[in-house]
């Protein structure tokens, strides 16, 4: 086998004509000159075609194949590697966050509240000269509406306006009759 390695090395490197006298003698002892030359030629012909240029199309196809696989790997990571509950938890966190961060619309709540507003009013009644003039204070309960973020309504105008003629008539009758 030592001979194998030596002959192998010579065949791969040196043509017969360039062998030293000693190597030439040794080679002729192992194989004939013609056999060495034939083998050397065959090996060198093979080595000359060690590389063969592949087509650019093959390379382009392969690169697009690996890029496509890279993309599908990314997608599968999103759809398969993350468990379903993780996506659900993300939703649970994100939705309230959006709810908090969005500007709130002003909410106006209107509800009727009964408030005791003392109203003092004097009713002047024109009667015959012998009649006693009576002044009476009237206390009225007026419902008003309270609205958040708004100025309170003035009370007096509403109260006075709400006194209809019929109400005044009723008051007049009361005073005149004295009942």
């Amino acid at each position, binding site marked *: *086998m030592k001979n*194998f*390695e030596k*002959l*192998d090395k010579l*065949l*791969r490197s040196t043509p017969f004509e360039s062998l030293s006298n000693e190597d030439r003698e040794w080679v002729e002892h192992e*194989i004939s000159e*013609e*056999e060495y*030359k*034939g*083998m050397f030629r*065959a*090996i060198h*012909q*093979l*080595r000359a*075609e*060690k*590389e*063969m*240029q*592949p*087509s650019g199309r*093959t*390379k382009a*196809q*392969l*690169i697009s*194949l*690996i*890029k496509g*696989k*890279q993309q599908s*790997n990314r997608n599968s990571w999103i759809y398969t590697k993350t468990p379903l509950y993780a996506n659900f938890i993300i939703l649970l966190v994100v939705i309230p966050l959006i709810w908090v961060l969005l500007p709130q619309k002003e909410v106006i709540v209107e509800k009727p509240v009964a408030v005791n507003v003392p109203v003092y009013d004097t009713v002047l009644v024109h009667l015959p000269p012998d009649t006693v003039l009576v002044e009476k204070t009237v206390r009225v309960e007026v419902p008003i509406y309270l609205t958040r973020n708004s100025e309170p309504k003035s009370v007096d105008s509403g109260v006075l306006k709400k006194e209809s003629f019929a109400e005044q008539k009723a008051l007049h009758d009361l005073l005149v009759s004295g009942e």
Partner: protein
Amino acid sequence: MKLFRKYKSKTDEQLMILIKDGDHRAFTLLYDRYASRIKAFFYRMLWSDSSVAEDHLHDLFAKLIERPELYNEHSLVRPWLFQIAHNMCKNAYRKKGFETQYLSQLEEGVVYSEAERSIDEGFIKDEVYKLLDMLDEERRSMFLLRYQQDMSLRELAEIYDIPSGTVKSKLFYIRKFVVDRVELD
């Protein structure tokens, strides 16, 4: 550019690990390092047919993209690639064997003229083709890997999964076989 230089300094094994993660730059670099050599190997293994060699080259690297997990991180990339190439050639021979058998059954009784036959043979056969044609598939592949691709005995041992001593003795007999039959001028 800096990134590309960084890739260039990586070993085949490091590139292969990146390819496992789907890195297309690493793949491009590994392809550039080996595609032309593997094609040359396929060309001589597969009847000196350039288009067949190109198809097999494509299939080999496509396999590498589709199933990079087949690569064992402790083994060397170069012998691994040529091992795949060798196995693909074995499959191609098997397929060709079936096809030839089928065609010979179909062509039974069909006689080709001498002129047709000599044109076909002259078209495809050069000196190296004739030399390789004398060898069976395993000897041919080992001969090519040793003398065309300059593979070391250790790499050949890895490809064929045999001890280095066995590789040496096989090569010895292959060379003896070739020397006995080589065409002399």
